């Protein structure tokens, strides 16, 4: 394993807003890394630092051991444009050739088109593509230079299920061929399908940096909602992570395991009525993690979440 990206106590401010707050992490070759976090958490800022688009306010960012602002250090980096960015009058094949011309060892347009299902579209102007086709082309462009590191920012936003699965399969094949992939998403499903290591970012800090299964158990919270005269007693039960009052007088409790929590609830003789159970959305899971984050930060300074893979 070699270190591809290294962030060392990186802070990035935009005026009064701190987008990244003292982030340290390493990304090594090999596994697909999922970068999760709610909107505004700092995911895109983190990627733009690695791409050399922005500079850190303090701390250092290294890409392949050098400064990402130097174009030579970006020779083995692949990124995706937003799908709305593609120059509408250029043909698909021309866009591939244009981007490929920047790399020493670029894939041929035919091989890339074959890999991402673009062969039929090579003669089309990008302005005539559907949203899903543009997305596929954007993701394909990240791989044209045979990169060692690929950054995919929300690669399948707006795609239907089939298109999303096909794109994931293509990304996994590229990873098998030797590319390390960092993917941001706010779909838990996407991260589950692709990533082996997951970094959760919230409010500019690394909250969790762990294996997929470990993170899933942390964000895979269940929500119990019911009316009870004794919410404080429920909060004291084991396995209850968080709670919030609802406007109809009932209360929602975040729990690790719904079965265990309900059994506990019944056993403790706390009166309740109108019980419903559902899974937490990713956003709700994040909010819980972020609320918990001070202790995670202590862990980070102790070096737990700053290890490479």
């Amino acid at each position, binding site marked *: 394993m070699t270190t591809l990206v290294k962030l060392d106590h990186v802070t990035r401010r935009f005026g009064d807003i701190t987008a990244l707050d003292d982030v340290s992490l390493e990304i090594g070759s090999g596994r697909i890394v999922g970068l999760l976090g709610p909107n505004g958490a700092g995911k895109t800022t983190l990627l733009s630092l690695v791409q050399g*688009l922005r500079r850190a306010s303090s701390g250092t960012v290294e890409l392949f051991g050098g400064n990402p602002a130097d*174009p030579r250090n970006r020779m083995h*980096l692949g990124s995706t*444009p937003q799908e709305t*960015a593609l*120059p509408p*009058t*250029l043909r698909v094949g021309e866009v591939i050739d244009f981007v490929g*011309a*920047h790399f020493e060892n670029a894939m041929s347009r035919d091989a890339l088109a074959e890999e991402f299902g673009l062969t039929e579209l090579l003669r089309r102007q990008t302005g005539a593509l559907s949203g899903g086709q543009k997305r596929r082309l954007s993701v394909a462009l990240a791989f044209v230079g045979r990169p060692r590191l690929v950054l995919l920012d929300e690669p399948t936003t707006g795609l239907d299920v089939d298109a999303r699965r096909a794109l994931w399969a293509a990304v996994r094949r590229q990873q098998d061929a030797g590319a390390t992939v960092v993917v941001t998403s706010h779909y838990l499903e996407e991260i589950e399908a692709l990533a082996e290591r997951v970094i959760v970012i919230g409010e500019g800090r690394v909250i969790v940096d762990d294996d997929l299964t470990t993170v899933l158990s942390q964000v895979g919270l269940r929500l119990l909602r019911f009316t009870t005269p004794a919410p404080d007693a429920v909060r004291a039960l084991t396995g209850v992570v968080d709670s919030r009052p609802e406007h109809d007088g009932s209360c929602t409790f975040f729990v690790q395991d719904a079965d265990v929590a309900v059994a506990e609830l019944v056993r403790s003789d706390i009166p309740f009525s109108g019980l419903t159970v559902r899974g937490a959305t990713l956003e709700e899971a994040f909010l819980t993690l972020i609320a918990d984050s001070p202790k995670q930060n202590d862990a980070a300074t102790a070096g737990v979440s700053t290890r490479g893979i």
Partner: protein
Amino acid sequence: MSTVTLALTHTKYSLLETMRVPIAVIGSVAFPAFALLLFVVPQRAVADNAEFATQAVISLSVFAVLSNSLFNFGLNISEAREKPWDPYLRTLPVTGMARVLGYIFSIGLIGIASLIPVVVIGGLLTEANAPLWRVLAGVLALAVASIPFMLIGICIGFSMSSKAAIAVVQVVMFGFAFAGGLFLPPMLFAPWLNTLSTFFPSRQARELVIWVVQGGELAPWVWIGILAWTAVMLVLALFLFRRDEGRRFN
């Protein structure tokens, strides 16, 4: 990839994009030629006089370069700032220099193309004439004199949205063309207007190219003016470029 190779690659695809919407090129190529056909050729007092006709052709050549520089730099840059394709290109292994050269090559080529119909119509339908080497030297002088126009276009592009840029480019273009004696020869100007005119880069460009093509004397205000406009606009362009980097990322 060397800077020059990549600059040529960027030139190629930039021209390709422009050619796909040919009406954009026809505008800057055809307008000066039409102006020559409609306003100079029918006026036989000018068209049949070798000196006046040559000056009229030169004036409209300066106009062609002026409008091409303002429109292409002003609009290309202001549009690129609004589109996410530009930040994507900056993630590729390409230097800023290669991208700037790509802009200059592609816009310069269209500028040279816009001169051809003016020179051909002038040569065939009027008495305008000059030895070939002077014509070529004139094109070179035009290239030098167009630097302030390019920089003004860059400043417009970095300081406003593309909608505002369209309006401002038109006002600047026609204002500079009239004030610089590109539509009406300065010999028809009132003395105060003539004095005012000498401060415009369009007038300075016209006089520089006339001097190169027809000979005679070059007034010092011509080259002093071109240098001054270049210096001031370069400083402003660099300032706006840096400010834009800061603002775009906020």
